[in-house]
């Protein structure tokens, strides 16, 4: 296609070296073409003019409003022209046509493609300016209109169901496969491409058929590339993620009503597009293709893992296909020990598979236990993990030895944890003992040994044991957490005291404790009002540093 564009440019140089056409000329050329097929040649003038525009835009820094207006008129006229031609079915090759007619038709089709390619070139201009954005978005609107017209008029017969998927595929390819890496959002892997967002808002999320064909065509598009470079892979990935992340592709609870969803093309083939199974299979195929891309980095995996269980798994035809992917990411996180984030994130998806798709996962709790590393409480994802952990530990069939191991391990982690972590652990343990009825684990808080036995007591906990059922934690105690009674933050120390009190509160709402961080703690501190006096130091020092100073070991 790119080659075609170039040949047009060459042609233009030979045929026409005239300067810019005026708005009036454009109008007159358009009407003349519409008047009679004799004037079809005039199209080249317009296309050349538009080519000129694309070139100027890609080289110039900023268009002035006059020029923008001009280029938009050009764009509009060209698109109405082609729309008109499409509706006259001139762009359709038919056997009934004579050779001459076919020649004209072919020529016209090539011009039509030229125009579309010009638009794609326009899209690829990687600059940001207000006017360029307007032009690009206008072009999107026009080109989507073409699909509408094509589907309506260029089908085998008028009125028959038809979807112009060839053109749509071209559009998708240009929309999804090119872009700027710097626009990718570091936090969640989405991309900040206004054209894509426009497409998402006005077309993708609105119309079911466009969604359907997108997932149908995407594997084909990927196959078209012989070898994708890393950059393109990341772009495609992040664009697709952006499209899917915001809303579920359809409402899983309401599969029957899929036929009610609005369509962009009125005569789209209903039998195909309303088949949920086909859609799911396409969706699955697309995502498995995408996940198989070799250029993806850990960040991409993290960003997809965060949405996997909600936005992707439910729409899979056969979700077991994700099993390997998830178990692998999960064990990568644990085995390398350095990135438990991956494990934490894949846990959600795994759980979804286990719950709804009957996935058998051996030594689940052992692997879960392995996630409890010193890093855990420093992570941002800890709240996500604890939500799940509460779910897993709520099983009444868990042996006390396993629960005790988890409690003991968590309490050990508290020794190096920020207050936000400790604050989660305490109510979590309380809930385990009280709410989820693992009351045997009370032994960790209150041992029933006699004083004589205590004299000979040796802590039996084996911290290096990987299997939570063999750690002997049940005969140990949570001294680590108990030492936090002396924590510097008054709230933490107050919270630890719940282990000293009667266990007569049914449960703590874990959600209240999950999202604390230094920022929040500081904010509450700063919002406290001054009541009474501030406690002042009555010991006085001569100076800040040096001998007789507050910090004797330091100097200014």
């Amino acid at each position, binding site marked *: 296609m790119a080659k075609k564009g170039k040949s047009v440019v060459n042609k233009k140089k030979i045929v026409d070296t005239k300067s810019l056409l005026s708005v009036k000329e454009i109008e007159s050329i358009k009407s003349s073409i519409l008047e009679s097929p004799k004037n079809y040649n005039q199209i080249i003038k317009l296309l050349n003019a538009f080519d000129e525009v694309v070139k100027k835009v890609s080289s110039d820094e900023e268009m002035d409003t006059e020029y923008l207006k001009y280029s938009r008129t050009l764009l509009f006229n060209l698109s109405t022209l082609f729309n008109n031609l499409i509706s006259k079915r001139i762009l359709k090759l038919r056997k009934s046509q004579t050779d001459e007619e076919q020649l004209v038709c072919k020529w016209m089709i090539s011009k039509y493609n030229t125009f579309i390619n010009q638009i794609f070139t326009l899209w690829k201009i990687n600059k940001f300016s207000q006017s360029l954005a307007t032009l690009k978005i206008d072009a999107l609107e026009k080109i989507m209109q073409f699909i509408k017209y094509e589907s309506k008029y260029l089908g085998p017969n008028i009125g028959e169901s038809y979807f112009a998927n060839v053109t749509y595929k071209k559009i998708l390819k240009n929309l999804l496969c090119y872009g700027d890496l710097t626009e990718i959002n570091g936090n969640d892997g989405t991309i900040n491409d206004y054209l894509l967002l426009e497409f998402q808002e006005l077309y993708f999320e609105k119309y079911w058929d466009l969604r359907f064909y997108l997932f149908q065509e995407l594997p084909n598009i990927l196959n078209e590339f012989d070898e994708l470079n890393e950059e393109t892979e990341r772009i495609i990935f992040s664009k697709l993620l952006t499209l899917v992340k915001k809303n579920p592709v359809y409402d899983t609870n309401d599969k029957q009503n899929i036929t009610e969803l609005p369509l962009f093309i009125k005569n789209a083939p209903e039998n195909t597009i309303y088949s949920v199974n086909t859609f799911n299979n396409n969706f699955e195929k697309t995502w498995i293709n995408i996940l198989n891309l070799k250029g993806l980095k850990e960040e991409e995996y993290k960003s997809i893992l965060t949405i996997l269980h909600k936005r992707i798994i439910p729409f899979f035809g056969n979700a077991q296909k994700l099993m390997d992917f998830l178990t692998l990411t999960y064990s990568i996180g644990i085995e390398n020990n350095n990135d438990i984030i991956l494990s934490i994130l894949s846990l959600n998806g795994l759980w979804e598979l286990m719950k709804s798709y009957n996935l058998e996962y051996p030594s689940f709790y052992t692997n879960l236990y392995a996630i409890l590393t010193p890093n855990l409480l420093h992570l941002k994802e800890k709240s996500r993990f604890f939500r799940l952990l509460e779910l897993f530990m709520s099983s009444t069939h868990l042996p006390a030895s396993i629960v005790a191991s988890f409690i003991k391990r968590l309490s050990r982690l508290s*020794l*190096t944890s920020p207050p936000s972590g400790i604050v989660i652990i305490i109510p979590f343990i309380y809930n385990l003992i009280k709410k989820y009825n693992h009351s045997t684990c009370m032994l960790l808080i209150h041992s029933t040994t006699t004083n004589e036995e205590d004299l000979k007591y040796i802590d039996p906990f084996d911290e290096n044991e990987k299997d939570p059922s063999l750690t002997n934690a049940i005969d140990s105690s949570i001294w680590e957490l108990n030492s936090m009674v002396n924590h510097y933050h008054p709230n933490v120390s107050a919270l630890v005291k719940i282990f000293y009190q009667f266990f007569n509160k049914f449960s703590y709402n874990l959600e209240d404790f999950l999202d604390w961080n230094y920022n929040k703690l500081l904010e509450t501190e700063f919002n406290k009002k001054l009541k*009474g006096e501030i406690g*002042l130091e009555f010991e006085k020092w001569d*100076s800040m540093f040096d001998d007789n100073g507050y910090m004797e070991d330091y100097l200014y």
Partner: protein
Amino acid sequence: MAGGAQLKKLRESLQNAGLTANSFGKKSKGKARKGAQDKLRKDDKERALSEIREKFNPFDVKVTRNKRADAMEKKLTVGKPGINKQIGEENRRKEYESRMQRKGKAGGIIDRRFGEGNVQLSAEEKMLERFTKERLAKASKSSMYNLDDDDNIDFQDDGDFGGLTHLGQSLSGNGPSRDTIDDDDFFSKKRSAGADDESAAVDENGQPLRKKTKAEVMKEVIAKSKRYKKERQQTHLENQEKVGELDEEFENVMDEISEVNRGKQTDNVEKTKFDIDYEMKVTEAKLDRRAKPTDRTKTAEEIEKEEAERLLENEKKRQERMEGDIEDEEVRAEGAVGDDLGDDFWNGSGDEENGFSVGSPDNSSDEELEPADESDNENDVKSSRPKSTSGETVITIGNKKIVVKPKTVKAKLTCPKTLKEFKLHIDENNFEEIVIVIKKIFETYQPKLAEGNKEKLGVFTQVLFEYLLELSNLPEGFENEKYVRIMDFLTRTISNLTEKYESLLLDSFREHLKNAHERLLSQDSEQFPKKSDAILLTLIGRTFSTSDKFHLVVIPALLVAAESLEFMKPEQNKTDIFFGIFLCDLIIRYERISERIVPEVISFLQRVLISIIPKPEEIENWEQILICSNKPKSTIFTPKEDKLQLSTEEVKLSISKMWELSKSTKENETRQFLNHLIIKSVQTLDTLITKMIKNTTAAPELTLSFIPIIRHLIKHSETNSIIINTGNKLANIYKISNQERRPLKLQTHRAIGIAQVAPRFSDRFNPDSKSSRSIDMDPMDPIAIRDEINKLKHEVKEERKQALKEIRRDTKFEARAQIERKKKEYDEYHSKMAKIYNSIQTEEGAAKNEYEREKKARKNRK
């Protein structure tokens, strides 16, 4: 006025009710005509009158207000406490009177045994006494059972022994010979006095043992009255004589008084200057407030003692705050208020150095150092002046030289409100000048000099605070004495003034902390850490009581410090290493008393040690290290040599120097920097062990997790006493704490019952009845029974209260009545005696006259 108004009102309201004289008159006219109607009207009138009475005596009526009852327009409970009281009083009086009438006329057996009813005697004493009396009685001539002798025994025993009575009368039959009532009185006296000799004496005087004849009585009375009369006459005579003498001398006295007066008048005219001065002095002295003895100078010992007491008090308060169980109000009441910012605080503001801290008496150590400082400073000032001569202009007028000092010092200072304004006043490179300017400002704006100065200085202190932090970011250090001096001066000033400008400086501290926190969040190593952050946090530690459990500045400061420890990267950034170790030291210093645990310090120290020791991948037992989930890797700061050469002497690290070193990229400087920090971090670990780890219940885990690192360090460095000592300490504490480890027993409190929530079904349940559970419905219902019992208990309690009240009222009334009666008796007695005296006197008078006449007659006869 009020009375008049009251009267007027009364008249008005009477008129309104139609009860004035006129209406009465009218009524009286119509009285004859309408009989029954009139009576009705009379009732109306009564009612109207009582209403008016009530209105004018609003305190007679008391209404119990009840919000709900008011809303429901129910009848309010109206009580008349005054009237009720009066009724009660009357009832009591009636009862009392009837009792008094019956007294002595009816009654039971009175126990007259010795000591009965005397609380002061113990049972044993009583028995002993009774026994002796019994023996004595037996020893006397006749047998006890001789009824005839009973009289004697009775007399001897003072009636205390054995004499049984009935109805207050002696059963012996001699009763009538003794006055029962007197007897009674005697007994009461006897009991209260405790049956001693004294009462026996009274007995002899007041109560004749034998009834005297009337003649005898009269004789005695006459003799007595004669004696009294003679005495009276004598004193009267003496008085008369004295009055006579005074009368004679009166004129002389009057003369003298008039003379003195006249003399004074003449004096006034010819008063000398000396006299005037003298008088002035005298009046001055008179008007002068006398020095109070409390103002005397205290001895050194006393001052010491007071100081010790004050410290003790402070320590007690601090302890309470550390436990976190202090009540706010208490603090408010005890704590210093802004108003008690006494004059003495500012008095010394002219002082050198200590300047603005004089109010606080506890910088005794400061004072010792002061003289040196002072002279030092003065010298500095002098020496600095010639330098600034360029700014001085010398004007010569005749012989006089006027030196106009540079504008910065002399010019009229305005109290700067912003840092910018302040900078206009100072030469930023001349630190001494700045100190002088600051002092000048404090002097000029002493709060006692003008209103609003206090607030201005508060704002200025905030400005100084800002300036301090700016100064601390300068590339100056301990080598520059002037810099150190101004920093010390500023920190001391701010620290001391925090007490005075609590809320203002609280805002400042918070703002700076917030600022540090925001810079930290930006994750930019250029933005955070800065030297000013170190100074700010140190200043907080120095100023506030860091051991408090709740504290508006210390807790946020700790949070910011802990947050930076959490987010700094000692594996990548040298400044972070130094600043982090400094923060660890600072936090340990914060917690030196309260010994709270700060997990961030532990984790940071481990991170630092692992990233700067040689060959971290070879650490044995790395699994024991708490922060390691996998084998530690070497970082860019890992030393290349196998054996480190570390100094064993303790070096004081200079913040500015270390900062400089941390920014440098030179190989050898980096090495030097890191070697310093290895030793420093081991020292920090040492204090961490004693201050934070040793006393926690998690000591074995914490010590164990440092042991592999220190062992590794010992292995990979030349013998270094500091590291080895720390290693030994760790091992010791690990051993001891592991031995002492006992399983937790946190739930050792008494078992609690489980609340019963099981529903109870009753056949006789009646949804219409007010209380759904009552004993009538189901006599077995435990809740109903419990409620019933509670109700009864409550009733008993109320009744008891009422009864006690009633009894108290009764006794009070009785006491009053008794006093009244006594008074009446005394009055009667006295008036009786007065009558007797009168009659005797008249008799005597007649006799005297006769005697006089006789005397005269005899004289005449002569």
